């Protein structure tokens, strides 16, 4: 009876690629109805083509895969190691995770990454906010509340990934940002009027002039397909929303993109294209890239954003760097009466040696 119902529902149609099996899904990009096996093949080949066409990797490179334990990075690690084998890229792949120190969220997802390390045979490096900055996100949220927490987390994560990648002596860092994420970011940057990031966020590779270039092999891959791939392949991933993120502004753009996709799936790729083709008039003054005085990393200000935020936390002025107060650049010591320090001592050199990244996406 079950077989009977399956064929009745699919109305006698066959996969438009192999013309033999029953279709399991419709591709958002092409609206083709295809079966599971053909889906795996086209999904993987498409990513391979993106990698080749954009010259993302060179043979012999060490590649750090930013791994959160979530579906995107899990699928990325799986597909990359598969393609590396199949097409002989000659890459050394590593998993790189950031432990923000969020109890009940990151500790669980890191368990997933640890299982992925074994499942895919990729060495794993975990860098933690506690080790790098002397603060966990749990502690930061206690001080600053749920309003600007994502700013801290975002700025710190970016640098943490850079430092982890440097530790692994990686030539490049790849992240699981997918087409939906990028379209979302293009929209957000338009809404914020952030011209500097608008075109950059749609690039497949950024930071090529910096120490560790980043690239996004899933730039043209729909989230919907990544999810189906992870589900059909029964990949082991973690899916719980960050306990501190429900207030995030990004959520609105995210829902808007999904609404658009339902009406017209192509809209996602169109928005990415708009971002790519955005041209800044030559008379617009762009922020100049310099170097952070304190930690020596790329920054358009005297101090990089992470150093300003960290100084605010350590001096008990967490609004520093959030509101438009001028940051004091003397880097003086932290008050001991800080409520969340719980008497733990953090050594000064953390500040001095901390590298900063640019602040893009």
């Amino acid at each position, binding site marked *: *009876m079950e077989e009977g119902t*399956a064929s009745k529902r699919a109305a006698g149609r066959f996969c438009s690629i192999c013309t033999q099996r029953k279709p399991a*899904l419709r591709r958002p990009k092409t609206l083709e109805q295809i079966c599971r096996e053909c889906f795996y093949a086209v999904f993987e080949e498409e990513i391979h083509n993106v990698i080749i066409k954009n010259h993302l990797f060179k043979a012999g490179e060490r590649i750090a895969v930013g791994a*959160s334990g979530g579906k995107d990075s899990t699928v990325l690690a799986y597909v990359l190691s598969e393609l590396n084998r199949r097409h002989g890229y000659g890459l050394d792949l590593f998993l790189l995770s950031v432990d923000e120190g969020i109890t009940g969220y990151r500790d669980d997802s890191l368990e997933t990454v640890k299982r992925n390390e074994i499942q895919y045979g990729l060495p794993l490096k975990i860098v933690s906010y506690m080790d790098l900055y002397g603060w966990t996100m749990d502690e930061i949220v206690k001080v600053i509340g749920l309003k600007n927490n994502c700013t801290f987390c975002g700025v710190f994560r970016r640098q943490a990934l850079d430092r982890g990648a440097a530790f692994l002596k990686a030539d490049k860092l790849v992240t699981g940002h997918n087409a939906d994420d990028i379209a979302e970011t293009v929209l957000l940057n338009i809404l914020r009027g952030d011209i500097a990031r608008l075109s950059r966020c749609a690039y497949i590779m950024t930071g090529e002039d910096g120490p560790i270039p980043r690239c996004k092999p899933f730039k043209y891959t729909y*989230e919907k397909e990544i999810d189906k791939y992870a589900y059909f392949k029964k990949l082991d991933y973690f*899916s*719980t929303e960050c306990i501190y*993120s429900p207030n995030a502004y990004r959520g609105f753009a*995210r*829902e808007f993109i999904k609404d658009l996709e339902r009406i017209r799936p192509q809209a996602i790729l169109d928005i990415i294209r708009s971002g790519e083709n955005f041209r800044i008039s030559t008379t617009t003054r762009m922020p100049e890239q310099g170097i952070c005085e304190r930690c020596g990393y790329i920054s358009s200000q005297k101090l990089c954003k992470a150093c300003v935020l960290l100084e605010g936390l350590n001096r008990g002025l967490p609004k520093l760097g959030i509101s438009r107060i001028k940051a004091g650049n003397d880097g003086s010591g932290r008050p001991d009466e800080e409520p969340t320090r719980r008497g733990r001592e953090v050594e000064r050199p953390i500040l001095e040696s901390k590298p900063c990244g640019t602040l893009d996406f």
Partner: protein
Amino acid sequence: MHLTLEFGGGLDLLCQSVKIHQVDVAPKDENAKLTMRDLLAWVRSSLIKERPEMFMKGDTVRPGVLVLVNDCDWELCGGIDMELEEKDVVVFISTLHGG
């Protein structure tokens, strides 16, 4: 009608962190078929314990929630008007979380 419902991608958190539910759902009247529309309404009132807006928008699932019936995307089987049958396996996966 006996069905297996599976909630993934964080949707399980809305129904007391249980991923797989074995359920019996009756059609509205005896002669009528059970459609996805009926099932969604039933899930919303009987299974979802919190934040139903994470699961539904209007009378259908929220955009960004994938629905698979017997491992086939519901878009291919009629979507919200699809008629369910005995022992169908229905999977809901949310994509609205970080990756």
